[in-house]
């Protein structure tokens, strides 16, 4: 089998080519020694022989300046891959700038094949790109690729299949100075001028569009509108899908009970396993749709502009415009968001970004917010909407205060920089947007799924045993292990204004926040009646009747405010902590973050309760 790595600058069309080469047959390899996932795909069968392609993170050179660029370098020289060669992806509209990377690959001794992309951006009658001349000048085979129709991919593959592997092992690139890099650029320019004359219509309207989208005043306004549209679209687009997924798992759970009776095992499958799986999959639509929006904005070129617009406010908080994409992803799920922080090139900024990502309102908080909002404002959707927006904003404000204060307290040796390429605007390609979004959503399912499922099963066991034969669910619960635990920990939650049952909910929410809702359903004894009302409706009417032993209601405005503030601030997610641990390669960071966020959440929620009660 042959194995080739794809290497190219960001925005060079590398992912599109990878898609053309591999189709859907991809696997994700967790890169050894780091946590970066690299996509590896087998070549499409129409190309015949056995061949594998490795997609590496985009890099401007073999002189890395961020973690993901370092991964590219590592992957190239890793003996595990034993590469037969490299496909250098070269954007024909940015040839002068990207030729040095090709040269570096050649100088290291790799067997290099050049894929020349982005021909669709040239104005046909005014551009000449001489691939044959480039081939002669570089002494490397060049293959023009049509990114829209996939033309040229086949001849690239057949050339690769015929190629012989270099007998010499490639050597690492030399250490360079800024002067060397400048000289490489000059030579790249000279070569590009000899082989191509181009005039780009995309270039002209990028300039015109940026006059508006990056306008000192209008730019900020448009940014605000785009983000509002992005977030509101998640709700109206995801809601029906989420209802469908929710309904599917609820029906499956009922079906199991109706088919296999009320025995312990069928209850375990129904209430433990299927409900637990539902808790994982119900968020997939929302996470996926947000990532579709983010990927489409990224591919269009707008996201780099958005990062530029927010750089100034973020820099005041010790962060960087580059933190924008990770933070934005944090509104879907902190796990892929933390993985996106690899592109940051300053240690301090990465540290701060990783720290505040979990303050962004991820989708797991929404079921909890939705539950209490419908409890407080039954027939007042407007007030509910305002409260929801306030909770989103609250998370952002807490993140801003924390980052702003810590950036001033903690000293790091090196300052970050913000230098970002603004790619030419282009139309996003549906296929690559969908693929990209699937790739990112996978991180959520693969990394959080098992944890949520396991905890849901454990919780079911704790609330069922030891008196599992007791038919009265209320009595069974009162005598269960979980009730005993709850009563022991009650004093901790008392200052928040809640009883042991909510305490259980809050504890179990450390598996994943949304588990709170299903836990409340368990501890408040909802769901066995089987009447027509929705699960949430039943839960809410149970909550209204829930009282302390002395007869006071448990769920008041004050106690709900305190619970909501707790959820807004707390880091209740094992998956997030484990990703933080691996990404920062520091248990101290992960544990420190866990402790810090939860103590802060507890203190804030106790204060809120004191004020309101």
């Amino acid at each position: 089998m042959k194995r080739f790595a794809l290497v190219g600058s960001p925005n060079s069309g590398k992912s599109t080519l990878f898609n053309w080469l591999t189709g859907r047959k991809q696997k994700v390899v967790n890169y050894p020694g780091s946590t970066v996932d690299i996509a590896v795909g087998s070549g499409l069968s129409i190309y015949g022989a056995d061949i594998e392609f490795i997609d590496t993170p985009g890099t401007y050179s073999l002189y890395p300046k961020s973690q993901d660029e370092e991964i590219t370098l590592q992957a190239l020289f890793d003996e595990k891959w034993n590469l037969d060669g490299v496909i250098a992806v070269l954007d024909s509209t940015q040839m002068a700038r990207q030729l040095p990377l090709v040269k570096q690959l050649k100088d290291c001794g790799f067997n290099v094949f050049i894929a020349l992309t982005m021909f669709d951006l040239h104005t046909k009658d005014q551009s000449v790109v001489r691939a044959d001349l480039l081939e002669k000048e570089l002494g490397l085979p060049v293959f023009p690729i049509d990114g829209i129709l996939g033309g040229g991919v086949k001849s690239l593959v057949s050339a690769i299949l015929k190629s012989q592997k270099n007998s010499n092992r490639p050597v690492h690139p030399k250490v360079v100075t800024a002067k060397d890099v400048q000289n490489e650029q000059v030579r790249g320019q000279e070569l590009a001028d000899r082989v191509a004359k181009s005039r780009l219509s995309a270039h002209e309207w990028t300039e015109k569009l940026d006059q508006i989208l990056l306008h000192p005043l209008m730019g900020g306004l448009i940014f605000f509108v785009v983000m509002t549209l992005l977030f509101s679209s998640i709700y109206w687009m995801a809601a029906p899908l989420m209802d469908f997924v929710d309904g599917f798992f609820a029906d499956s759970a009922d079906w199991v009970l109706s088919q296999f009776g009320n025995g312990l095992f069928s209850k375990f499958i129904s209430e433990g396993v299927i409900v637990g799986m539902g808790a994982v999959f119900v968020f997939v639509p929302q996470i996926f749709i947000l990532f579709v929006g983010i990927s489409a904005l990224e591919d269009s070129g707008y996201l780099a502009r958005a990062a530029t617009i927010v750089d100034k406010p973020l820099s005041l908080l010790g962060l960087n415009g580059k933190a924008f994409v990770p933070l934005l992803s944090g509104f879907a799920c902190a796990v892929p968001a933390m993985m996106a922080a690899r592109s940051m090139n300053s240690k301090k900024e990465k540290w701060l970004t990783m720290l505040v990502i979990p303050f962004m309102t991820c989708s797991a908080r929404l079921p909890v917010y939705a539950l209490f909002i419908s409890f407080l404002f039954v027939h007042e959707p407007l007030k509910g909407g305002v409260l929801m927006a306030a909770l989103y904003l609250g998370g952002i404000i807490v993140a801003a205060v924390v980052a702003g204060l810590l950036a001033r307290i903690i000293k790091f040796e090196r300052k970050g920089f913000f230098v970002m390429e603004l790619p030419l605007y282009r139309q996003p390609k549906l296929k690559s947007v969908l693929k990209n979004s699937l790739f990112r959503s996978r991180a959520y399912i693969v990394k959080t799924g098992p944890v949520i499922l396991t905890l849901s099963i454990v919780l079911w066991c704790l609330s069922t045993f030891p008196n599992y034969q007791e038919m009265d669910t209320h009595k069974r619960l009162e005598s269960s292990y979980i009730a005993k635990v709850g009563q022991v920990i009650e004093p901790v939650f008392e200052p928040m204004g809640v009883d042991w049952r909510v305490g259980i909910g809050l504890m179990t929410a450390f598996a994943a926040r949304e588990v709170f809702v299903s836990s409340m359903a368990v501890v408040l004894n909802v769901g066995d009646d089987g009447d027509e009302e929705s699960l949430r409706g039943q839960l809410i009417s149970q909550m209204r009747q829930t009282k302390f032993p002395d007869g006071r209601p448990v769920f008041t405005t004050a106690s709900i405010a305190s619970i909501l503030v707790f959820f807004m601030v707390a880091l209740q997610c094992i998956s997030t902590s484990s990703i933080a641990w691996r990404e920062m390669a520091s248990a101290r960071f992960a544990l420190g973050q866990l402790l810090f966020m939860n103590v802060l959440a507890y203190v804030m929620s106790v204060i809120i309760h004191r004020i309101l009660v």
Partner: protein
Amino acid sequence: MNSLIDAKVGQSYFIQDVLGDPGVSERIAELGIIPGREIIIQQKLPFHGPYIVKVRSTFVSLRREEAAIIMIRGNE
């Protein structure tokens, strides 16, 4: 010698030198911002925010701090 901070939006200048730490100046060079080339500021974002510059066929945004290490002279 002036830096890019002194440059006016929409006017063209020649880059004379790029100073600063190796990491930053290398990245700036990799984006095509090198001595001898013409540079135009397309926009300056408000409150001393990032500058959007154009060098040949590349658009780049960079902070004021990074603009300060790009030395320029007028293009009369």
